[in-house]
Structure formats: structure tokens, C-alpha cells
């Protein structure tokens, strides 16, 4: 086997169209090893952005871990143990199994905690010691204090739109991060993203972006957020698979954003008059 064949196949670039200076900001934060907090509505491209940045940093040689990114989707049952690791039974013995956070701390990968405010409060203990100058991960059960790999970076995301009522990040947590705000892209950019991701023609992509623009005017009526770019891409993909545009809009937009019949009727009408 020649040495060339041993090299891993390069991963394809995750498509991401920058809407501002977020790429430069993230690169700067990575170089200074400052943890990053991304705020923005659902489906606006936060996760895709982190994937893109991990790929970009890996390609430039600044990030050597493989995999370069470990994503953890937080939920209300997620505890510190789930992140750090636990003892598992193997036959007659117990063996320690690192959790995803510990793995990325040791290997120097980007650890991405998606929708972090959903996680239980005991996780903040871990986040605090990792996100300030100490860069330490205490593991109670093994009595270990792991120093983070020089390349390790903690990235978190949350959605202030619907999570702020009951749950919110404490200032002591929030102020350990460089915050990048995300929102749905402007009309032309959104149309370009839809056209690229769903492989539909530009005119139809513009129509979908117009629908999004108009439906987002109704954010306060029964649905916390407007139609996301992700839903528009789904619509485009359904259209690309031969589903009629109106039906695709019904499936991916109307029924997805609200259960309220009145809102659904209004959104259906907006889609109806805007599509050819």
C-alpha cells in the first residue's frame, strides 16, 4: 500500500455562505482560544457554520484532531455525567468510558453544545472551568483533572427567541464567551442558499425567499419564529423531487410552523398567491 493511499479522503466542504464577518470572528476566537457562543433562531445556519469552520480550520492545518468537531445536542435529561463519561460494566469489571466532552478536551477538537440551555444545570460547572483561562475539566468519578488540549475549543449555541421565557443563560456563563449573533439571511443571500442547497432554479428560490420574508411578518402569531431557511431548503428539495410547489410549501412550511388553523390558512394563502 503506497503512503498516498493511507491518507484519509478529504471531507467535502460543508456549504456555508457568510452573511457578515462571522468567519473572521470565529477564526480570531479560535486563534485566541476564546470560547464562542452563537445566538440565533432555529434553522438559520448555526450548526452548518460550526461544521464549516471545523472543516476550514482542519484544512488550514490549525486543527489537527480527527474528528475535528464533536456535536452534542442538549436536552433536558442531559447531565454532566453524559458529557464527561461514566463507568461501564464489561464482563466482571468496570471500565471508564469518556463522554464526548472529555474526548474533545483530550483530542483537541471543537466541542459544540447545541441548544445548551436545554441541558441540566450541573453542566454549567464543567462549562465554567473549561471556558475561562483555566481550561480544565474536572472528572469527579475518576478524581482526574484534565487539562484541555491546546486546540480544544468550546462552542455553544442557543436560541434566545423561545428559550428566554423559562430558561436563560446566567450572566456568569454568558460572559465567558465571544457572542456571535445570527439571523435569517437577507433576501438575496437566502435565495442563493436555497438555490444551492436544494438545486432548484434561481427564480423559484427567489419566490421561496419572498414567501419567507412575508411569513416572517407574522412571527408573533402562534409560532415563536418565522419560517427558517432550513424549511425553505426542504421545500426546495421537495420541489426538486417533483412535488408541486404548493404542495411542497404546505408540507414543509404551512404545517411545520404552526398548529393553529387560522395561522395555517393565512400562511397557505400567502404561499398560494406568491407561487406561480
Amino acid at each position, binding site marked *: 500500500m503506497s503512503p498516498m493511499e493511507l491518507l484519509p479522503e478529504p471531507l467535502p466542504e460543508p456549504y456555508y455562505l457568510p452573511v457578515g464577518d462571522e468567519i473572521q470572528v470565529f477564526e480570531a476566537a479560535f486563534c485566541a482560544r476564546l470560547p464562542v457562543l452563537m445566538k440565533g433562531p432555529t434553522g438559520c445556519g448555526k450548526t452548518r457554520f460550526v461544521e464549516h469552520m471545523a472543516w476550514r480550520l482542519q484544512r488550514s492545518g490549525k486543527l489537527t484532531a480527527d474528528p475535528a468537531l464533536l456535536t452534542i445536542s442538549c436536552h433536558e435529561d442531559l447531565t454532566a455525567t453524559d458529557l464527561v463519561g*461514566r463507568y461501564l*460494566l464489561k*464482563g466482571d469489571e468496570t471500565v471508564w468510558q469518556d463522554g464526548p466532552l472529555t474526548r474533545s478536551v483530550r483530542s483537541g477538537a471543537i466541542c459544540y453544545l447545541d441548544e445548551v440551555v436545554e441541558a441540566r444545570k450541573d453542566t454549567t460547572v464543567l462549562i465554567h472551568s473549561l471556558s475561562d483561562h483555566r481550561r480544565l475539566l474536572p472528572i469527579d468519578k475518576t478524581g482526574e483533572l484534565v487539562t484541555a488540549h491546546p486546540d480544544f475549543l468550546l462552542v455553544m449555541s442557543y436560541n434566545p427567541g423561545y428559550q428566554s421565557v423559562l430558561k436563560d443563560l446566567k450572566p456568569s456563563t454568558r460572559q465567558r464567551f465571544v457572542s456571535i449573533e445570527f439571523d435569517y439571511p437577507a433576501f438575496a443571500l437566502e435565495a442563493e442558499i436555497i438555490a444551492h442547497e436544494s438545486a432548484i432554479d434561481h427564480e423559484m428560490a427567489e419566490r421561496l425567499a419572498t414567501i419567507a420574508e*412575508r411569513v416572517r*411578518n407574522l412571527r408573533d402569531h402562534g409560532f415563536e419564529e418565522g419560517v427558517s431557511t432550513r424549511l425553505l431548503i426542504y421545500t426546495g428539495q421537495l420541489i426538486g423531487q417533483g412535488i408541486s410547489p404548493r404542495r411542497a410549501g404546505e408540507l414543509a412550511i404551512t404545517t411545520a410552523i404552526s398548529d393553529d388553523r*387560522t395561522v395555517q*390558512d*393565512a400562511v397557505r394563502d400567502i404561499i398560494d*398567491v406568491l*407561487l406561480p
Partner: protein
Amino acid sequence: MIELADVEGSLALFAEGLAGRYLHLKTLAEQNTDSIDARLTNQSMDNLYLPGCLPHGERSDYLVLVLEQIGYRECGTFGFDYARFCELTGVSQPTPKPHTQPDRDSDFTRLFNRFEDPAIARRLFLLLEALRISHHIQRTYPGAAHYLRQHHAKLRAQFSAHRTRFDLLQHRVWGDLQALPSLEDSLIPLSISHGSVYTTAEMTCQLYPFFHHEHDLLLEELNAEVSGTEWMQREARLEDWKDDQEDLARQMLNVEILQAEDALLREDVGLAGDTRDTNQTLNSLKSERDALSRRIEMERAALRHAVGSPRGQARSFRYDEWNYLERRYIRRWCRLYEERIVPEAGADVDDLRRVIRQWRAKVRSRLAQLRPLGLQRVSRVADGDELDLNAVLEARQDIRAGISPDDRTYSRRERVQRDICAAFLVDLSASTDDPIEPPEPMPFEDDDEVPNLRDPYHEPPEPASVEEPRKIIHVQREAMLVMASALDALGDSFGIYGFSGYGHDCVEFFVAKEPDESLSGRTLSAIAAMQPKRSTRMGPAIRHTVAKLMAAGQSLKLLIVLSDGFPQDCDYGPRRGEHEYGVEDTAKALAEATAKGIETFCITVDRSGHDYLKRMCPDARYLVIEDIEDLPDALTKVYTTLTLR
């Protein structure tokens, strides 16, 4: 056949989505103006007017009507500027006639006044503009094109008479390409679909000679003095004037800064001050600003008179009303405007906090018994004050079986959100402005003591200091403040609303606090800013609060109404002064709330309230307070009782 009431909710959202701002959807019957041209635009800045019923219509016809009206806004019809038109077309602005007030005329009126017969020009312009809007709709909303064609076909069938040339043009607007004689038709340029309002104005000038002899036939219809479109243009122009006013203020500030800098400089170099030039500039700017302010105020007054008070910040809803005489609901009879109470800027909340402090201990001790409900034991957690035996057993079984156990084997008590939402609805009728204690009658004064004002040695007595009497509204506000503070400490979600209004088409609903908002200084100020207003149409206010409670989604929902008398309004019943109709409608609204699982309760300070409250409130859920100062205490008692049921 379709009624607006059937589709109103979704149609309002449809309009808001497309227009990007909230617009009140109203029936044509609610329109202030009788102008013939208003039929063509059917809107004002805040309102879209639609037929209450379309006998041959369907939902898509309403969509078209909304699109047509939004089209005027999107196409910049109301941004028409007569000076710009003159500049574009190279025509000169005529000298205003001596008896006219060009500033008070809309720019459209100034355009139409160019013609020998302005009414003809106005009619022609509006029809051509409708044609342009129609093209715009087909281009921007391709999905609506076939709805538009269907709608126009119905109109053509409905109004088939061709009495005048205007009828022919109207049919041309409705899509009949053969309607107009070829000569006139050829004058309508293809560019109209991409043209601006100035294209329409120019076309009006070109086509006017073909139409000017139509006047006699249309005299009756064209009597309208000023059209809806013109009022809309004046509303749009008002915004420009406000921008100009801000510009002037900025310029004045710049001049003042310049003056101050100049004075400092002169002081430094020891020169005598000469700021005559800048003073002159400042004075001229001031007079310009004052003239503009006066003009804006006059224009506002004229607009208020013509198209009603602006309700830009309010949202409106329509509710049924129970007509007990006919034993049926009058569908969508009441229009309720919901708006937030905006406290005065810089309002002092120290007095409010003092009231809260005064009552805090008493109210909290009463509400303390509700507190334990706020804690709940959560099982299967990693840390806690007790072992969760089920989880421990499962873990042991897993270990025995050689499977990694779940280490969440504890349980603990956690504070959870109480699943309660309360709404307090406060009557803000004019009568709440009455003093709690009637004023003492003036003591009889002996004639001898009447002062002789001609007496040069007479000294008038010092006026006694008059303290504002304590009023019902004061106690209502204080009760709300106390409750708000106590419930916030308890962690319950609650809303505080006020209501008043005048007439079935203007029920006012004021929001001081919504259930999902936290209690802040702003909320306290909003409660303190609750003021006595007008009448007491209780039914729609209760129905609206019920809708809010249902939307909040908590399992226990409370509605507590605070009032100072029976429900009454100018048209709340067949005869003014008869209260039975209002009592029956309110009783029905409360029964509807109970049927939806809402606990209702009425508290009144009207000592004669027993007779009507007995009939109005289900299961005698009411309380008449003898001494109004007991209101905060009574409210706490009622709240505790209802939530512990």
C-alpha cells in the same frame, strides 16, 4: 356566499404578512367616508375596508380585495408629490386660486384642479391607477392572477351596463381588452404595468379630453368632494412633514452649537460678540418650525375628522354579542381595540412601591398557604435528598445482569412553575373617577357674610388647600399593584387588563401586563397609568380576556373582574339607560368562560350590586365590597380560594 366574519382571522394575518404591518380589517359599513372614490381604494393608513358579505363570492375574492388594497401601498400611490409630477412632465405649477389653501389640499387635489372639471380627472385617475395596480398584482403575486381574473369576470357580469365611457374604462380595468374604443385604448401605454403613479397622472392628462364631456351623466356620483385616496395621500404627506420637522430641529441644534462655539472663541480672543447672522438664521428656523408644527396639528385634526382617530399601535378584534331579546348572538358585532398602556416617561414609581410595602406582609401571609404547591418531587436524578427506590432496584438488576446501570438513582424536590394563569380585568369606566366618599355639602353661608367685593378694605380669605379626594380608580390601581407584586413573588403567571370604550364598534382594551411578561418598573407604571375612560361594555372585554387565557395554555385559568357598577354603554341594548341587555350579555360571556374551564369571579364596589350580580355571575361567584379600602384584602382572599379549589 361568504361572510367576512368567516375568514376575518386568517385574512387579517394574510394582510399583515404581505403588508408587513398590522391593518384593521373592517366592513364597509364601518367606513367614515361616503365618498364614491373610497370604493376604489377602501382603505386608510390603518384600515382595510371590505364588504361584510359577498353574495356571489368565495374566499379568493376576499384575497383579491386585500391584494388590491395592499397594491396601492406597494406601488407608492399615496406617495404622489405634485411638485415632482410638474418637474417630471415639465409643466408649470399653476398659481393657487385666491380662495384656495394649497397647503391644506392633497397633492392629488392640486393635480385634479389643473383640469377644467376636477371630478372627471379624479375619476379617470383612479380607474387608471386601478389598472396599474391590477398589473402589479399579476406580476408580483402570480398565484393570484387567476383569482383576479375570476373576480373581474364576476364584476363584469354583475355590472354589465355600459352607460358611459367610464363604464367602458371600468370594464377595461376588469380585464375586458375590447371594452374601450381602439383610439383611447391605444393611449394606454404598455408601460403602465411597470410605471409609477406619475405614469398614471400623465395618462390622466392624455385621456382627459376623451372623458371630459361625461360629466353630466356622472354628476351625482362625482359629487364627492375629496376622495379616500386623497386622504391617504395627506396621511402619507404628514409623515414627510414630520421628517421635515425633525430636520429643522437638527438644523436649529447645529446653529445653537455653532453659536456657543463662536461665543467661546470670541471670549478667548477677547472680541466683542456679534452673533447677529446666526441669530437671524435661528429665528427664521424657529418660525419655520412653528409654522410647520401648526400645519401638522391642523392636518392631523382634519384627518381625524375625515378618517377617524389613528389607531396605529392597536390591534382590533371582533366578538359576538348576546341579544337576549331575540335569544341569539349578533355575529361579530363588537369591535375591540387592544393596546398597551404606555406609562408617562420618567414616571415616579416610588409611591407605588410604598403602597406595595404597606400591604406586602398581609398579602404574603395569606398567599403563603399556596406556596407548597410550587414544589414537586422529581425522580431519577443524579443528586437528591432521597434515594429513588425504583431506580435503585433497576440499577441493581442491571449490575446483576452485567449491564451498565443508570446512575440517576435519586429524587429531589424542585420548584416547578405553578400551572396557573390569572387575568384581572379592571373596569375603567368614567364612574371610577368618582370619589369614594361623596363630598361634604358646602356649609350654608349667612348673607351677612357675603364679602363686599367693592369694599376697598376687604381682604379675600386664604383659599383652603384642596386635597384631591380618594377615588375608586385609586383603590383599584392599588389593589392591582399589591396583587401583581404578591403573585410575582409566588411565581404565578397573570395578566392585568383594563377596559372601557364607547359604542359597539369601539370597545377599548388596555394591556398593563401580559402573563408571559415579568413584573418590572414599567409594569408598575403601566398599572399606575390606568385612567377612567368612558363606558362599560363588559361582554366583549370578557370574551377577549377569555381568548387570551385560552391562548396562555395553563391548566388552571382564572378570570377576576373588578368593576364599580353594572355594564352599560351608549348602544348596549335597545334603549339607553336600560341595563338588562348588558347584564344578560355579560352573564352569557361569563357562562362561555365557565364552559371553557375558566374559573370566573366578579368583585364590585357597587353596594347595590347584589340584584344584578346574582343574575350575571354563575354560581353566585361575586363579591360586593362594602368598604372599598378592603379591595386588596378581598382580592387576595378570592384568589386564594379559587386556586385552592
